[in-house]
């Protein structure tokens, strides 16, 4: 990838970050993700009194010496998480200066890097039209190259019905699902969220908008052409229309926020005009998606 996002210095900074997963899924093989479940990791978590059947190897004999009671040491069980990245590959994502698609790929790469770095399992899913194209399930730091190669082949074209496309994806169990899209999509987002909930997914919506979409700078009478459908609309861009546009955009963002909140997800608006660093170290850390 020629995006220069994986320069050594940047990667060094990334290594210090991880995906903030409060809810670790119970199922799944052991990884580096700290789960709430207590298990046999090296990281101490708590004590409790010995009960019948406990592993005698975990009895804290020093504590027995002091309190003459048997205590068992409890350790954090470190589990791996299934991280699914859903990247909207419709034509609309290929717009904006800089392009939303670039921001989308970069975000996907960063999250993939973080996931692989944390020894989580990763699957990248490309949404196009009504289908989903999934990468192999990747695991381990060494797999990042394969992941990068997969991201490199992405073509942004056509439309996306996100609801339909994601429903093609079969989840193995709990996990984290990140959706990177401009959400200019057909299908009901509400249904999609229910689907995620059904498969016990933690949801993160990364809403990528171009600066031109956030603040359009068109003037006069313009014939707007939809890049996906080719549909055209004549608009007389008067100040009153601009006001309405901004209002519509704000309504759109807040509706997405509400849906995300309703289903326990997290929502972030990201401008493709912002630098990746700003997005990572400000927007995403602020919303505690990564830490």
């Amino acid at each position, binding site marked *: 990838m020629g995006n220069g996002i994986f320069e050594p210095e940047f990667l060094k900074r990334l290594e210090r970050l991880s995906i903030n997963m409060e809810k670790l899924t119970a199922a799944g093989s052991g990884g580096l993700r700290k789960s709430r479940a207590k298990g046999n990791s090296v990281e101490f978590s708590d004590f409790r009194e010995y009960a019948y059947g406990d592993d005698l190897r975990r009895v804290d004999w020093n504590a027995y010496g002091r309190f003459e009671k048997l205590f068992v040491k409890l350790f954090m069980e470190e589990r791996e998480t299934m991280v699914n990245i859903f990247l909207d590959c419709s034509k609309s994502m290929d717009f904006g200066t800089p392009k939303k698609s670039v921001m989308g790929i970069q975000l996907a790469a960063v999250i993939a890097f973080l996931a692989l770095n944390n020894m989580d399992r990763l699957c990248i899913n490309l949404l196009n039209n009504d289908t989903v194209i999934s990468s192999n399930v990747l695991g381990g730091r060494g797999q990042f190259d394969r992941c990068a190669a997969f991201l490199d082949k992405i073509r942004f074209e056509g439309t996306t019905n996100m609801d339909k496309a994601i429903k093609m994806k079969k989840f193995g169990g709990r996990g984290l699902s990140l959706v990177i899209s401009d959400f200019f999509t057909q299908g009901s987002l509400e249904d999609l969220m229910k689907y995620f909930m059904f498969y016990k997914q933690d949801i993160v919506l990364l809403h990528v908008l171009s600066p031109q979409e956030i603040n359009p700078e068109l003037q006069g*009478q313009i014939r707007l052409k939809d890049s996906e459908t080719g549909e*055209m609309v*004549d608009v007389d861009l008067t100040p009153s229309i601009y006001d309405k546009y901004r209002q519509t955009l704000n309504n759109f963002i807040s509706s997405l926020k509400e849906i995300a909140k309703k289903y326990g997800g997290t929502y972030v608006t990201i401008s493709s005009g912002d630098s990746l660093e700003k997005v990572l170290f400000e927007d995403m850390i602020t919303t505690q998606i990564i830490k």
Partner: protein
Amino acid sequence: MGFNNPYAWALLPLVGLIILMYMLKQQHEEMEISSLYLWEKVLAQSEVKKPWQKLKNNILMLMQLLAAFLIIMALSNPFLTKGKALGGNIIIVIDRSGSMNASYEGKTRLDIAKSMAEKAIVESDNSSVFTLISIDKTANVEFSGVADKQEAIKAVESLEKTNMSGSIKVHLSLIKSIYKQFESANVLIYTDEEVALEDMSGEIIALGGYGSNVGIGHISYSQDSGEYTVLVRVENSSQETEKRELALYGEDRLLGLKDLELAPGESSNVLFEGIDTVYKYLMAELTEEDDLPEDNRAYLVLESTDPKSVLLFSEKNIFIEKALSSIKGLEVYKTDDINISAEGYDLYIFDGIMPTKLPDDGSLFFVNPREGNPYFKSGETIEGGRADILEHSLNENIDGYNFYIGKMKALEKPYWADALIKVGNNTAAGAGVYEGRKIAYTAFDIHDSDFPLDASFPIFMYNIAAYLTDMEHQGKSYYFTGEIIPLNFISGIQEAVMEDPDGKKTSIGEELLDYGYSDTNSIGIYKLSYKKDQDERERILAVNFPREEGIDAFQGQWEGERKEGNRRGYSLMGLNLQAPIIIFVLLLLAAEWMVYIRGN
């Protein structure tokens, strides 16, 4: 709906210019954006309904197109047609000849013409300028260039009927010349005569038609052994057989009655015999009223003057005797006895002979006077030559004639006499008044000339005899309405007063006597009172309705004519829409401005 200025519609293609400008302007800059997802929501908010929005997008253009269209329409000066009246220069021609007195259901054709003309004036455009011409015997321009409708209507109302004969055709050249004065004009001709507009534009309103009418076409009399026989011609101009009663009156007394039955177009001569000669005038009357009552009466004046007596002293002159004896009203006596002492004659003629004693009364006429005549200085006999009849009131109808004289006397023209005929510088005939006596002479013997062979001779003799005897022209036994009655039959009269049949008296100045009396519109008996030689005298004259007006009045119906011609400066009457359209355009432009402001 019509247009006063249809040429403005040539500007209509300019409307296309607005559409073109919009098309050029409407070329939206095409811009591809990621998705219309948001924009569609935005537009859905501002659009209530899509078709309306489409219209709204173009509403400014539509309003401008409408405004441009209406401006062009206003320029074309449109109006809602209301009737057929005209505008601009309107020449109203009303025929008021005798035939226009024919009536339908109590209204004469003239009344109908007047009310139609008044309606046309009322309904005409406010910018109209009117000219009114009435046609009777003459064409009278009642007014010209009047813009005030009330004034025009008053003038039309004040047109009175006439009984005269008259024809639009005769005066069409005058109407045309007035028509051509204007750059554009329309002629409205109200007549019962069949005429054509020719190259004028306008309308001929045909008022003719059939009707029930029997009229008197002619009346005359002949005298036979102290009685008159009167001939009356009655003509039926109806389309049906008519029964009538014809009455003959002697002044106010009924002299005879005859019943008639006339087939359509038939005329009948009715004789009344044995009429006493005591009456000054006669009147024939059809007693039943019909559609044209004016031609139901006819008057006839009977001759009443005393004959004048003439004593001719002549040896052999048959020419003079014959010429005089053919003159009605003269009693000619002839003698060759120069010794008789004559008196009591009105005129004494001495043809080459001289009585021993000249009479003391009457006028004198010397033909080739001999030496010793107290009135002339006799000269020697000289060669004659071409004799020219000079211009003089006594040479009426023969001035300019000439004849040849073989020999004549070189008479010196007396100072009191006017020269009537001259051969070179010599006076061959003259007349004048000397010591209160009228005296005339010729300086040649009639036999020494070819004068008697010339047509001017009897007229010369008549003129001289009439002058010397004060014989008056009898005049015609009747005149037609509108005809000028000549009054020059009497000379030297003072204080002439004409009383018409309606009792209206008009005094006639001396200067008008030569012209005659022209106010002869009324049918009936006119009385002329005048003073002559200190005597009060009276003459009566009859005026009848012109025959052709009665005959022509019921020739049937014919189509009028209508030519719109050049419409420039010509506006059909109606509600002018220019001002309302301009107001509407202004409102429209204001609305358009508001739409524009709101759109932004």
